[in-house]
């Protein structure tokens, strides 16, 4: 039996209409998605240019770059002899981040491996939630932990005069960058095809041998990216290190020295400067430097990840 001609014509028209609507809907959704993507890029550039704009007049108008990078004399509000030597701040950032990575890399990758390879089902989910909770702790709270808990512990343990040190900040930053390392690291391990594990196990490798001899080399790039993203996270962190590292503009010689990082300096001083003053602008130069560091670190991580996908 066939439909009467009128009815079938109507049906056909409706189908065409529906197809057109569907197409229109798709176009709108596509446009929205593209807009989101583009605006993310626009925002990043806008922020960078805003920071750079505030920095430029000083950067090309009187800042002694040799002093900026080579001197540790940071006297931004001295009336007679202002000096903007950021070396101590840069080294402070490097010291805290570096030591943080010494703790965070074994901790982060050490957690990614058991979560990805040695746990299943509920246990795996539970472990992942714990790690994600770690990421949800606000950085002020970490700062408090540094001030109230780590500070006395460090004083007791090392018989140090003060516990607000590179070590304190590094421990906090390590804990703060562990979550991203774990989740990216776990992704990297998960991306290793199961056939490799099976092949190795079929040759009599234990699960640990599989990890050491097959997964770590196979996931090397992904794990490296995990570490780099952790570094990026640590370099940019402000509040916790501001509270936990003792606020001393000195070049650190050991983990028990107090320091001040780039981020802490900006956060502490920006509120007190007059808009447009040299001091105000030099803080934006620091911001530009920070931006450049995190940009390079993240870009490297991204390139590494991409290289690893292509393979």
């Amino acid at each position, binding site marked *: 039996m066939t439909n009467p001609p009128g009815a079938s014509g109507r049906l056909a028209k409706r189908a065409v209409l529906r197809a057109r609507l569907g197409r229109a809907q798709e176009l709108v959704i596509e446009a929205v998605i593209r807009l989101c993507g583009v605006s993310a890029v626009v925002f990043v550039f806008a922020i960078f240019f805003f920071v750079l704009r505030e920095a430029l007049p000083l950067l090309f108008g009187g800042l002694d770059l040799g002093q900026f990078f080579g001197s540790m004399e940071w006297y931004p509000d001295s009336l007679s002899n202002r000096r903007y030597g950021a070396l101590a701040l840069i080294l402070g950032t490097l010291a805290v981040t570096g030591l943080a990575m010494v703790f965070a890399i074994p901790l982060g990758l050490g957690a990614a491996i058991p979560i990805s390879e040695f746990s299943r089902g509920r246990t795996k989910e539970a472990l992942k939630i714990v790690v994600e909770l770690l990421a949800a702790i606000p950085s002020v709270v970490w700062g408090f932990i540094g001030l109230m808990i780590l500070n006395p512990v460090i004083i007791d343990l090392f018989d140090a005069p003060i516990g607000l040190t590179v070590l304190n900040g590094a421990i906090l930053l390590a804990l703060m960058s562990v979550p991203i390392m774990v989740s990216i690291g776990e992704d990297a391990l998960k991306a290793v095809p199961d056939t490799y594990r099976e092949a190795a196990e079929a040759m*009599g490798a234990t699960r640990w041998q599989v990890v050491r001899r097959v997964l770590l080399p196979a996931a090397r790039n992904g794990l490296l990216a995990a570490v780099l993203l952790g570094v990026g996270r640590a370099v940019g962190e402000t509040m916790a290190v501001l509270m936990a590292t003792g606020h001393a503009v000195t070049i650190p010689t050991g983990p028990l020295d107090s320091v001040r990082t780039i981020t802490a300096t900006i956060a502490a001083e920006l509120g007190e400067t007059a808009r447009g003053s040299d001091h105000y602008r030099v803080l934006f130069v620091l911001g530009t430097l920070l931006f450049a560091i995190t940009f390079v670190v993240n870009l490297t991580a991204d390139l590494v990840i991409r290289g690893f996908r292509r393979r």
Partner: protein
Amino acid sequence: MDRQGVRTRDLCLWYGSFQALKSVSLTIRHGQVTGLIGPSGCGKTTLLRCFNRINERIAGVRTQGTIEILGHDVYAPGTDLIELRKRVGMVFQRPNPLPLSVAENVLFGLRVHGSGRLAPDVVEGAVEAALKGVGLWSDLKDRLRTRATDLPLEQQQKLCIARLLPLKPELLLMDEPCSALDPAATSRVENLIRELRGTYTILIVTHNMAQARRVSDECIYMLLGEVIEHRRTEDLFINPSDERTARYIEGRYG
């Protein structure tokens, strides 16, 4: 006297509630090539994967019955899985060399089963012998550092056979080892299998009747998890004793 290579008694296997092997009892002779044929889904891969207990990687697998390999009960409590897998090597359907260099693939077994470092002369000797064993030496002797996963499929699959040899396995399990290869490569791998015959007991799954006839001494026909027929290959193909075997091999020649 014919030595027993592998003997199973009432082997049953379940994936969850689905029974994939039903009371399989087999005796596979040592030093021969035994082919395993049957329609898709009849349990050939499953059976093969029981012999090195790699099935146990999959959650929800339950096995019953016994398997003896050269007199050792493989499912006995306290069986050393690592030792078992050293004696029973497996070649998979898709070539799956490890993402390491050619040399490291060959040495993987020695590294995993050995203790301490391998002496340089052991390394060189083992790599050369294994690659010669599968006819890859002349092709790859200058490319031992190449990533194995970058090789052409035929070389990958031969390498997957080669990497088993340094451990001197007693049983080689091959699951459709040629299904990813072109006809020319297939025939070269078949030659290799014939050369390995005698030194190793080989159990090979294949969908290709002609291949089963070319390489195997004995042949097993499976259907829906059961062994239907197990005889010398020429007998099974020329004069099958079971109606269902006859239909299967005829259907295939169709």
